[in-house]
């Protein structure tokens, strides 16, 4: 009973993440890749993402501190970061990336900085949510850590 409750809870958490726009279809793709051979695939990927994206974020931050702003470089850094976020299905973060790149193209430094702050926020929020999600999934046990939509 507890377990089934946990399952339900997990499913709800998951659903909320999607409904609230934190995650998109790509996340589902990751879930579908998870199998017996890689039972924690999704978590591994997300972990890898957060670990690797630190340096990408730092690059952006450094570039934002320069004056004058090098929009080409900013755009390029952001492009890299965006690629990563897209691959894990981090929807809100990705949207911020897109917005950031728009500002870059327009040469809008202020817009870039503002967006960047927003992006960092979304990035952090998602991280927390996913951590909680995976923790719950792990509690349930190795089998079916995540509910996959069928």
């Amino acid at each position, binding site marked *: 009973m507890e377990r089934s409750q946990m399952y339900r809870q997990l499913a709800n958490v998951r659903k909320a993440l999607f409904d609230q726009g934190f995650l998109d279809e790509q996340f589902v793709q990751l879930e579908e890749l998870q199998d017996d051979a890689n039972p924690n695939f999704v978590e591994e990927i997300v972990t890898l993402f957060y670990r690797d994206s630190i340096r990408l974020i730092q690059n952006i931050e450094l570039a934002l501190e320069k004056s004058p702003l090098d929009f080409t470089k900013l755009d390029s850094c952001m*492009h890299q970061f965006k690629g990563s976020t897209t691959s894990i299905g981090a929807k809100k973060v990705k949207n911020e990336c897109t917005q950031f790149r728009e500002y870059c193209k327009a040469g809008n430094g202020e817009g870039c900085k503002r967006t960047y702050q927003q992006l960092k926020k979304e990035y952090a929020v998602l991280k927390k949510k996913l951590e909680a999600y995976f923790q719950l999934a792990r509690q349930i046990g190795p089998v079916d850590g995540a509910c996959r939509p069928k």
Partner: protein
Amino acid sequence: MNFGVQGAKSMSMPSSSASWKSGDGVSDHFPVGLRVLLVDDDPTCLMILEKMLRNCLYEVTKCNRAEIALSLLRENKNGFDIVISDVHMPDMDGFKLLEHVGLEMDLPVIMMSADDSKSVVMNGVTHGACDYLIKPVRIEALRNIWQHVVRKRKHEWKDLEQSGSIEDGDRQQKPSEDADFSSSANEGSWRNSKRRKDEEDQAEERDDSSTLKKPRVVWSVELHQQFVVAVNQLGIDKAVPKKILELMNVPGLTRENVASHLQKYRLYLRRLSGVSQHPGGLNNSFVGPPETPFGSISSLNGLDLQALAATGQLPAQSLATLEAAALGRSTTKSGISMPFMDQRNLFSFENPKLRFRDDQQPQLGNNNKQMNLLHGIPTNMEPKQLANLHQSAQSSFRGMNMQPNSNHHGNQSSSLLVQMSQPPSRPQMFNDTNSNHFSMIPSSIAQPTLPSGMGSGVLARNGIVENARGAIYNSASQASTMVDFSINQNTDLPGNGFLLANNAGGQMATVASKGLLQEEVTSEMKGSRGLAPSYDIFSELHQHKSQDWGLPNVGLTFDASQHSNMRGGLDVPPSVLVQQNNVQNRITPFGKAIFSAAEESGRGNGPNIGQQLDTLLAGNSLRVKAESLPEASCQNTLFHEQYNQEDLMSALLKQQEGVGPVTNEFGFDGYALDNLPV
């Protein structure tokens, strides 16, 4: 992931053209085991894609740097069937990698990026990517990457079969018609088609300027030289495969390999002697003009070269170099072998190429620049010009592999080969990568009775086609499969195209050789081929369409910076060629299949072989065709940019097939990926 087995199984049957086609005659396992090389600097994406590909039952090798990817590819020429690479990478631009791969390995390359802007995608197209995926990539998109391979092979096969129909007249134009080379046992038509294809290829090559010629591996310059030495020792009339084999004493080389090579060589010699002078008008436009009458140029030059070669005026090396240059392959390896055809090409290419090459293709890297083996741009060079060129080429190339196997390290450029105008770089390039010394072939090809002009063209075409296919397969499998006569025992490999041709009975031989020749021609252009087939093709090309043949490559080379670089990957149809060095003993399933098919067909199934080759080649040719000659006169040349070497072939093939260029472009076939260490 299972792989390898299926290919062999299915291939062993000489089913008509089906053998390589997906589904037809191919084991159910295909595309299981497709060997994919995945390149992406983003570890997250890399991991995800790897998992997706594994789920598709492909063999995946991943790396996060383009340099690593290139070295993996070089070490394992036939170790991969397809490459998937990100566009934006810190150490090397994805398009540059595309170019390198195209030039050196002639593998299909799929580009990926989160950037879906039209310009970037267009860049991918022009560089010869067989497909472009927008990130985030879904597994469904990856599941189907094999279709490109199959399609290409299929086209090649088909082309081979149809090739006989091309008329002489077509040669001049850029034939968009269906691959002439389809099989027709009709020498004349075969030649025509081949020639036409060559022209197309040349044109395409030129246009594309993506000098990527991928050596198809197969008869390396050294190997060919050994072969020629053995033949000369025995006396051309008395040279029988068995004795040649004994004299050569190359482990892993089979009598059949030698037999088919000998056949080509004979065709080549015959062609040389029958080479007629074509009015040159070539002004090598290789700089660009796709339309220039390829035929005339090439024929002229080719003839000169051949004549020179024949007379021994040109040092073997020169010939080889020239050939390589012409072919775009890294030649330089076997001086002698560059049978005349190559020389012609080289010749022509060299001149113009030199000019271009220097400035262009910076990205290719040293090697590339050096290679400047003009593919086939025939120029009316006088013998001494040729010699001069040669010399200058030689001197300019540092790495030129004038000596067999001398420069393998520099390979990257080799693949570019011909296209690059700089002769020096080209030969080098080719050699490096595969150590396939394509140049060796020319002399032998002359032998066949094909009428000098047309016949060879046709033959060449077919040869190319076949080779291309073979090459494709081989390239796909990259290092492993290529038949490495010298090294491996597994003759199954790549040389298939070639072998097939050779082994095939008389009838098939024609076709096969045609196919092979075509490949060779193409590969010569590209520089990667190396098997006899190319001889014919080469000469054919030169004679008739030589200019196209050469030109396309040239064009490609020049654009090294552009997309065409990548094309190189496909260019060389020489799948069939035996790769001298790198064969890792891994025979890709396809390679094996081809080989077996070839062998079986060789036993007398002429048509089958053709078909098989066709299939094989189709895959390659498809690719090539699609990408390469955008402007080539050959309308349908679908050259994939990657297939520089195959461009010719594909051009040829395309001609025959009348395939629209674009459609196949993105059809890189995913080849099984051997277990390459990442």
